[in-house]
């Protein structure tokens, strides 16, 4: 029997999962218009590869990864790119992000898919393939998977943990995926296994999903692998990567370390599934399973194209009348969708239609009575009460001393708080303030350094110039003194070397330079032109203004080049 | 010499704005120890006034002669000498008062108020100004310590002016609260001094805030509503 470990803390919220697992996964219809944000994963923002007006096919790459930690983005269906612009993002900020807007043509034409036999490729090529297929962690963290598929050079990879725990209430997308597509998941895990070469592969599933456990055991057997499917106790947040690793291997990964350094790596089941589809079928990540649940007539899991606006999913959900908002993600770590136009992205595992009955409005925040319930619930064994105290007082240095950055924002502390303090909110606030301050500090340091360098340079230039001028003056003084010998004129007429002369010469030279500079500047000015000419120029400028695209520097450059040619 | 405005400023600072006990919170040690009743507080303040006035004038007269680096030892020396003189003086001529105040007169040497005023004011200002500063700082201390002592005495024992007969023979303390008042002893103990002093400081700040609000209402148009809503 496999012996499990325990992590401290954790909570047992009601699961609300039963309703959405009664029906199999269904494909959501292709919407008329898709909004595909380019930045859907951690890391660099992908560069757009298409322009407005381009025709794209399903699966065509529309965003190229920027540097190694980044992931490609693809067209979810065939159609026409109508714009590449800032659109509302599925993000708690409610701010827009650069997105490719595609009008679907309804034909859903695939690009030519190229399945590969990854066994014959170098590991590096497989990683690149995954990056270009847009495979990222679909558990919600959306970290590019290829970047996690390298073992540490000095630590042997012992365990590969596959996360099928799905501990957040309401969510059942991974559950259904494991039930229905277990074999693809297992084959996907096989890819990860081959790249990382771990000694063991452990698939952790919370014990409230017996069907998924059975399906995965059957799938492992059918594929003929030796992966261990392990039921883990249902305890939120057992599905957090660090908690699941702890439960299955006993290893604890602090914020200061990466999991390969401890010989373990963790992937979500859905990630493994998309990896297999990408390698064996040539299908990039263009859709994902989303649980549409909550205050709806028909809770169910749907396979939704990425970029589908939330508005198009509302008819599928049939929300009840008192629905007041939609939450993306689970009730513990999710956030309010900023609007119905925000699209489904790779991180969207669940949409919960919310009503005051399901998620009551927050109770008033009472003073902390230091009861310690949060510290007992914290799976990372932090002292949220102390962190709260310092975050509330804007004492960010102290929050870091109390390991603020080990907080995974799981929400256990807020869940148990009798004073109803939005602790996680305070911690997020403190984290983003610290990041912002670090950015500002870096900028200020850079500015100081540049300012000092510039001052030094100016000092040096001034000194050099003075020296040059002094030399020149000295030479001028010296030159005439030679003449008297030739001409026989008395030497006394010539003035001796005068320090003032050098200074005067320097000033004269500077004035001369300034005059020249002014002349250089002038020609472009319109002073000498007639009134009619000026008017004409003004008209031309006026016409030109709307053409200018301030954001698009390349445009301006093209225009400039054209003008210069003229 | 001294202008009217200057004088007013010095007086205001000493009596209220920079009050030694309520704002600068200096000299807590004698403050806590002697303000168990009104008379003690007032008498110690009187002695301090004399020391402060004298030392301020002395230091202000010498201020241009004292090197910056060694000013503190010189100040201490001046203050200590003056205190010793006053100690001897009291013993010789005001023996009754001397007995009441006991150890606290020599302890004025270490009272930070004296040194603080010498360092902060007399060291930078002419003797006349320094004299007024010393006196008004002392008077500020006098009324606060008297108030503090009076309150503690009243709460703790229900009397006022106890011990007055030691200073002026023939006078009797007042029994303000009923004779069977059990006495709230904590007020007479050091914690009570802290609590009552805290209340006095809070009262002073409250009065200041009221004055400031009143003034801004007078001079400014009604404040926009958004200011308070932002918090």
């Amino acid at each position, binding site marked *: 029997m496999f012996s499990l470990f325990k992590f401290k803390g954790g909570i047992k919220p009601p699961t609300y999962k039963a309703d959405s697992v009664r029906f199999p996964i269904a494909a959501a219809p292709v919407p008329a218009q898709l909004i595909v944000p380019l*930045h859907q994963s951690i890391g660099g923002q992908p560069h757009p590869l298409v322009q407005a007006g381009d025709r794209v096919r399903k699966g065509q790459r529309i965003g190229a990864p920027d540097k190694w930690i980044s992931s490609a983005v693809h067209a979810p269906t065939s159609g026409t790119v109508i714009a590449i612009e800032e659109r509302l*993002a599925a*993000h*708690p*900020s409610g*701010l*827009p*992000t650069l997105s490719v807007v595609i009008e679907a043509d309804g034909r859903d034409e695939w690009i030519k898919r190229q399945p590969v036999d990854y066994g014959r490729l170098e590991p590096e090529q497989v990683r690149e393939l995954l990056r270009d297929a847009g495979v990222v962690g679909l558990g919600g963290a959306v970290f590019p998977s290829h970047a996690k598929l390298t073992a540490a050079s000095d630590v042997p990879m012992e365990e590969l943990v596959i996360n099928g725990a799905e501990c957040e209430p309401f969510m059942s997308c991974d559950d259904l995926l494991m039930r229905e597509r277990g074999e693809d998941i297992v084959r996907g895990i096989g890819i990860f296994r081959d790249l990382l070469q771990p000694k063991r592969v452990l698939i952790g599933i919370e014990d409230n999903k017996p069907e998924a456990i059975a399906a995965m055991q059957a799938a492992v057997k059918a594929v003929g692998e030796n992966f261990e499917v392990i039921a883990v106790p249902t305890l939120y947040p057992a599905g957090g990567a660090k908690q699941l690793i702890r439960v299955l291997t006993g290893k604890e990964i602090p914020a200061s370390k990466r999991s390969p350094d401890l010989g373990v790596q963790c992937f979500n089941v859905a990630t493994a599934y998309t990896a297999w589809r990408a390698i064996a079928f040539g299908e990039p990540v263009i859709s994902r399973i989303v649980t549409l649940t909550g205050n709806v007539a028909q809770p169910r899991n749907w396979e939704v194209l990425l970029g589908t606006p939330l508005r198009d999913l509302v008819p599928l959900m049939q929300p009840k009348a008192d629905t007041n908002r939609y939450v993306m993600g689970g009730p513990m770590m999710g956030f309010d969708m900023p609007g119905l136009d925000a699209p489904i992205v790779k991180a969207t595992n669940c949409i919960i239609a919310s009503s005051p009955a399901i998620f009551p409005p*927050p*109770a*008033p*925040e009472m003073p902390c009575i230091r009861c310690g319930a949060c510290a007992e619930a914290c799976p990372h064994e932090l002292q949220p009460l102390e962190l709260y105290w310092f975050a509330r007082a804007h004492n960010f240095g102290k929050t870091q001393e109390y390991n603020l950055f080990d907080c995974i924002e799981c929400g256990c502390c807020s869940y148990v708080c009798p004073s109803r303090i*939005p602790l996680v*909110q*305070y911690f*997020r*606030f403190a*984290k*983003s*303030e610290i*990041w*912002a301050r670090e*950015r*500002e500090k870096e*900028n*200020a*340091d*850079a*500015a*100081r350094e*540049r*300012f000092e*360098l*510039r*001052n030094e340079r100016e000092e040096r230039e001034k000194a050099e110039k003075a020296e040059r001028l002094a030399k020149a003056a000295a030479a001028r003084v010296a030159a005439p003194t030679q003449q008297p010998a030739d001409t026989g004129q008395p030497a006394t007429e010539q003035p001796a070397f005068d320090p003032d002369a050098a200074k005067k010469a320097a000033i004269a030279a500077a004035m001369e330079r300034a005059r020249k*500079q002014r002349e*250089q*500047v002038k020609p*472009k*000015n319109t002073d000498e032109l007639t009134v009619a000419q000026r008017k004409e120029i003004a008209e031309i*400028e006026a016409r*030109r203004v709307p053409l*200018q695209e*301030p954001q698009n*520097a390349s445009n*301006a450059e093209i*225009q*400039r080049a054209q003008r210069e040619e003229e | 010499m001294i202008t009217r405005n200057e004088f007013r400023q010095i007086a205001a600072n000493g009596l209220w704005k920079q009050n030694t006990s309520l704002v600068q919170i200096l000299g807590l040690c004698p403050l806590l120890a002697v303000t168990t009743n009104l008379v003690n507080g007032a008498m110690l303040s009187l002695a301090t006034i004399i020391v402060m006035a004298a030392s301020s004038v002395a230091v202000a007269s010498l201020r241009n002669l004292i090197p910056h*680096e*060694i000013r503190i*030892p010189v100040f201490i020396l001046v203050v200590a000498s003056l205190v010793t003189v006053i100690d001897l003086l009291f013993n010789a001529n005001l023996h009754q008062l001397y007995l009441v105040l006991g150890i606290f007169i020599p302890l004025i040497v270490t009272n930070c108020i004296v040194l603080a005023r010498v360092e902060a004011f007399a060291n930078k200002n002419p003797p006349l100004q320094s004299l007024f500063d010393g006196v008004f700082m002392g008077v500020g201390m006098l009324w606060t310590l008297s108030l503090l002592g009076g309150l503690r005495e009243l709460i703790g024992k229900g009397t006022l002016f106890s011990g007055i007969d030691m200073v002026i023979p023939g006078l009797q303390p007042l029994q303000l609260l009923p004779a069977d008042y059990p006495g709230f002893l904590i007020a007479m103990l050091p914690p009570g001094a802290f609590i009552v002093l805290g209340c006095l400081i809070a009262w002073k700040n409250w009065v200041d805030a009221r004055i400031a609000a009143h003034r801004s209402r007078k001079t400014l148009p009604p404040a926009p509503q958004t200011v308070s809503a932002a918090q």
Partner: protein
Amino acid sequence: MITAILIMALGAVILGAALGYASVKFKVQGNPLVEKIDAILPQTQCGQCGYPGCKPYAEAIAEGEADINRCPPGGMEGVRKLADLLGREVKPLDAEEKPKQVAIIDEQLCIGCTLCVQACPVDAIVGAAKQMHTVVASLCTGCELCVKPCPVECIHMERIVENIDTWKWKYPVFEIKRVA
């Protein structure tokens, strides 16, 4: 009488010697406070404080010559931090507080005069004579020093708007009053 004078005199000689030695031995050169103040200042080098850069202003504050409320880019928060560091009273800012800005050169209008390049205290503008100039936005401190020198008024300041990457979680505020 004689004893008192002798003891005081002897004490004065010994202690005086000790003090003289200490004042020479432990003399502090420079002011370590300047570095601390400089670290708080925003390093825009804008000169709005009346000093040619942040360091000179920091020196002036440390000397007690300048007030702490003369740095508009640092804002009220900067004033508060300085007050904290120096134990002074917080004062309202001497000028209007502005949001963070970045300089933008209208490249259509720029004539390549290099005047702004010379004005920029942090070398954030690139361009050579008669070439169009541009501002390296990530280096720009928003000091506005380049705006005035431009002969064709092609530089304007733009407010830096929050984007998804610089967005910050807000301080949680719950209106207790409303609920009660």
